[in-house]
């Protein structure tokens, strides 16, 4: 990863800090870290099983809920990612992923990432 990308990541992180502050003030809690005072913790799922949704890497619900400063951070990060778009396969080229995991980080952490 280039130094520029790391600098961009560092520069964007304060947005997440700010997002947390805003979340605290507005009591936005997508992770339900505060225990809900409800009889059930089940959440209703939205039906997104129309054919069109299967061709999308995202979902309608994510698009709707992904607002606020964290949403801005996501949008910016996706813009940054465009600069790292892997090139197309050359004929008879043996495939290797554009990036791989860093050594020394437990498998379970990568499972969550």
């Amino acid at each position, binding site marked *: *990863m280039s130094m520029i*990308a*790391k600098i961009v*990541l*560092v520069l964007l*992180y304060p947005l*997440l*800090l700010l*997002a*947390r502050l805003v*979340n605290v003030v507005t009591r936005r809690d*997508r*992770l339900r*870290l505060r*225990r809900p005072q409800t*009889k*059930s*913790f*089940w*959440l*209703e*799922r939205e*039906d*997104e*099983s129309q*054919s069109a949704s*299967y*061709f*999308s*890497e*995202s*979902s309608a619900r*994510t698009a709707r*809920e*992904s607002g606020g*400063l*964290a949403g801005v951070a*996501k949008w910016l*990060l996706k813009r940054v*990612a465009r600069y*790292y778009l*892997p090139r*197309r396969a050359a*004929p*008879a*080229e043996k*495939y290797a*992923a554009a990036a*791989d*995991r*860093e050594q020394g*980080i*437990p*498998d*379970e*952490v*990568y*499972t*969550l*990432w």
Partner: protein
Amino acid sequence: MKNKSALSGSTKILGISAFYHDSAAALVVDGRIVAAAQEERFTRRKHDHHFPSNAIAYCLREAGITPVDLDYVGFYDKPLVKFDRLIETYAAFAPASFKSYLKALPLWLKSKLHLQREMDRALGGEYRGRFVFADHHESHAASAFFPSPFEEAAILTLDGVGEWSTTTMGWGRGNRLKLTHEIRFPHSLGLLYSAFTYYTGFRVNSGEYKVMGLAPYGEPRFAALIREHLIRIRDDGSFWMDMSYFNYCQGMTMTSGKFHQLFGAPPRNAESQISQREMDLAASVQVVCEEVMFKCAQHLHKITGMKNLVMAGGVALNCVGNGKILREGPFENLWIQPAAGDAGGALGVALLIWHHVLSQSRKVGASDSQHGSWLGPEFSNEETRRFLDQEGARYHSFANELELLDRVSDLMAGEKIVGWVNGRMEFGPRALGARSIIGDPRSAQMQATMNLKIKFRESFRPFAPCVLKEDAAEYFALQHESPYMLIVAPVQKKHRRQLSTEEQNTMRDPDLRKRVNVLRSTIPAVTHVDYSARVQTVDEGRHGRFYRLMKRFKEKTGCSVIVNTSFNIRGEPIVCSPQEAYRCFLGTHMDALVLGDQLLLKSEQPDAKTFDTETYKSSFKLD
């Protein structure tokens, strides 16, 4: 299959799971499961997360096609939804999440946010169709419902995490499924179990089986503490977790200092002595896990009114919990995807494309459509003999199956341990009679010998029995078939041994090796300390030669049960090819090896004494 012209005009769908855990590929042709395999079996790296290039190549080879011939390629989750969850989590835990954020994001920027391009490159730029992205839990649900033998069923999926969901429930009917409710990250039964796997000193994502195997040695004395502090469970099976006890959202470990304080010690160091405390912790989290699974099943039955249940997701590999659901109801029938973890997602997304995207109908037969989960590569006798000749191995070829089975059952009855490779390799984590190490369960030394001299693994771990389907109820309190070894059932009382006072004292000994050696039943090698067993029922329709071998063993010994463990050593993926099987045979104290129609005896092998076992063992990272 392997006949391209036979497939012209048919719809060929490739499913892929990759980049997280247990990468795999599956090929579905006109709704039929043609091939499926995990990448680890080819790369020999357990739980390999890399793009499953080898597994894809195998699936296409099996059908005799290339990427150009594929109509659809599906990925088992939605990357942008996962990215949304990741960033929201980092925001919620800022600034503590900074280090994790800096480590995780480069991979996303360079690779995971370009998944279509990555898949296009991996397929050599030859695939011309569109890519499909299914929700992670919908992929699990599809892998559980569509191959099941049920026209309609309630669906329960439980795992660590996919995109946002960690647990979902819903129903399937005909060619449709719908997930109606969910629990979302970071509240996760799978991650709770993994937290205890980590805390008790085992590797997460592979040591969960060990925790489950350790649980019967302990008392669930921490269960109340877990319920009071870590997880709140409602009567409907839904739950909420207090994240101050965990560190997986923002850090590099599963548990936090507060967790360690609650249980009074830091996590156990891997490979250090296992104490009664770890056994009690394992028993406690197992009890809580079963409680949630059972309550979810009850609630699901209440809201769907259906009599069948299907399950998938990593937690569905908790066969003790599955056994409880099956025994105590309320569902009449239960079917679990054998590759219940992430590997099964590859199959799920392929089936989703066929039934949901293409709206194709689904035919339900008397049996499931998983083909015994024997969906991987197989090797011909010619290939095998060519390899053995190259190696200078000594072998006996049997043109007559009866003679082969006669010889092998004789060896087993003589307490010999046999490596058994026959037909297509299994898809999923269990060896189901295609790549198995087998032996006589009546032997008093079998469990210890297999653990320490064959598998080179912890002595406390139990082995699983295979039982002839028609005789299952004779040995186990099991009223249903269990062809995928996903149900734990008690050994029948009539087969249990009454323990003497001395033996009862031994059962409290801190040294687990002593406890393991106490004979508890007429089939001690497969009877766990609590008289339970993880049963595979074997029938002729699914298992063919493997069934006939067991039948012959029964004719000779009167015993319908054999020991069946996966053909590998600790840390090694299950063997795939004759080469890997032969290497494992030479590197362990196995007595005999069957490769198709060929039988090899260790005592006759010229290389047996010079084989470098230590190098072989050290080539696999301990799990």
